[in-house]
């Protein structure tokens, strides 16, 4: 009866994405992603992963705080970093062919960096918008007691929750992980692939609580 729900569908491809950036600005005029990590998921399982360090021709500098929080390693980025133009085709291929693009706070942050990256490469990004699932808004929707009605648009529901602020409601990835009793190496957070692994574990809990 509920076979149509995403939780049972092993044929849908979900791409989890996380961008580590120089700061929290939403436009490339002052911010760029120095790392983009993605994991490809079918059912409950990770089937592939990509982790790119990006080396931009830029005068932008990462702040000390951001470097500490995001574990930015300048030498590693310089040594292992790719030209953003070189890795974009793979990122685009993954996102364009995903049934859903999942991330934590994607609607408030990552979507804008992805949009800027597509624009930088001269590509249209609008077809991606309806694919986004933001685990932060989905978790908050559950906590607020505002369930998703499958008859309404998922993206509109998520924006409604995104714009609803209630005091005392915690929904960070770490909090959700610990709250749901998820075993994980929490000391390694802000390592992009590690974050995505936790994001997947959180999603695997959340998806049983929403009618998607």
């Amino acid at each position, binding site marked *: 009866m509920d076979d149509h729900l995403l939780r049972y569908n092993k044929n849908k491809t979900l791409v989890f994405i996380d961008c580590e950036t120089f700061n929290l600005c*939403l*436009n490339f005029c002052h911010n760029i992603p120095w790392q983009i990590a993605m994991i490809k998921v079918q059912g409950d399982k990770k089937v592939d992963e990509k982790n790119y360090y990006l080396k931009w021709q830029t005068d932008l500098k990462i*702040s000390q705080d*951001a470097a500490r929080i995001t574990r930015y390693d300048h030498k590693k980025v310089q040594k292992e970093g790719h030209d953003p133009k070189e890795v974009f085709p793979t990122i685009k291929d993954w996102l364009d062919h995903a049934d859903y693009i999942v991330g934590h706070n994607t609607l408030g942050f990552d979507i804008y960096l992805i949009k800027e990256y597509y624009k930088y490469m001269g590509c249209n990004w609008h077809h991606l918008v309806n694919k986004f699932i933001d685990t932060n808004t989905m978790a908050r929707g559950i906590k607020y007691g505002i369930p998703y009605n499958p008859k309404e648009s998922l993206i*509109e529901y998520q924006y409604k929750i995104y714009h609803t602020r209630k005091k005392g409601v915690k929904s960070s990835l770490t909090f959700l992980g610990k709250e749901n009793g998820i075993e994980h190496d929490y000391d390694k957070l802000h390592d992009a692939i590690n974050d995505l692994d936790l994001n997947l574990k959180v999603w695997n809990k959340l998806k049983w609580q929403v009618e998607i």
Partner: protein
Amino acid sequence: MIPLFKSHYSLGRSILTLEDKNEADDYPDSIIQIAKENKLKELFLVEDNMSSFLEAYTNTKSNNIKLNYGLRVTVTESINDKTDESRQKNSKVVIFFRNKQGHELLTKLFSTAAKAGFYYEPRLDYDTISKNWSDDLLLCIPFYDSFIFNNTLRNSICIPQFNFTKPIVFIEDNDLPFDYIIKDKMEKFAQENKLELFKTKSIYYNNKKDFKTYLTFRCINNRSILNKPELDHMSSNEFAFESYLKAK
């Protein structure tokens, strides 16, 4: 497409002035200067209050530019309701005046909004607007923060009452992820209610490269910093006159 300018008189919302100057210099760009440089015969100015009117009127008149002056104001269910819940019923409308009588009516309406209706911001309700309405005014539904926008993307419950006039619907495209969602809803609303629909472009700065200056200005007003602006969805550099020229 109609360019809808906003000046720095709408506090913290635009970096454009209304100064009468002929060309760009080291100081902030002026809407009058942009109008003269681009030979605009009329100007659409949509402000969040009415304090710019004198300078806008004086400087457009001396340059033979027709001024269309509009007020972007909050409407709520009842201006007497000053509770937190009432804020869920807030949305924006734009009211233009067509002539001197219209100017007097709009001034009176804004005065009511800023005194009797004030709750965090000047507010009107549809009852007050309809009681003071005449054909000297023109009601428009803006693209952002209208009842359609708020009911769709925010948890708002805004019930419009346009029984006193036929509003004009504005649609925009500023390359924000939710623009197409709102555009579809606005077009549907206009079609169902047989309303006129105009493509518009809100303009807060001259060139796309000015976005960083605009963002800095917004951050200062928000007491935040460029590295952490804390301004929802502040990602588009399309609110520029340059974008209007490209899109028109």
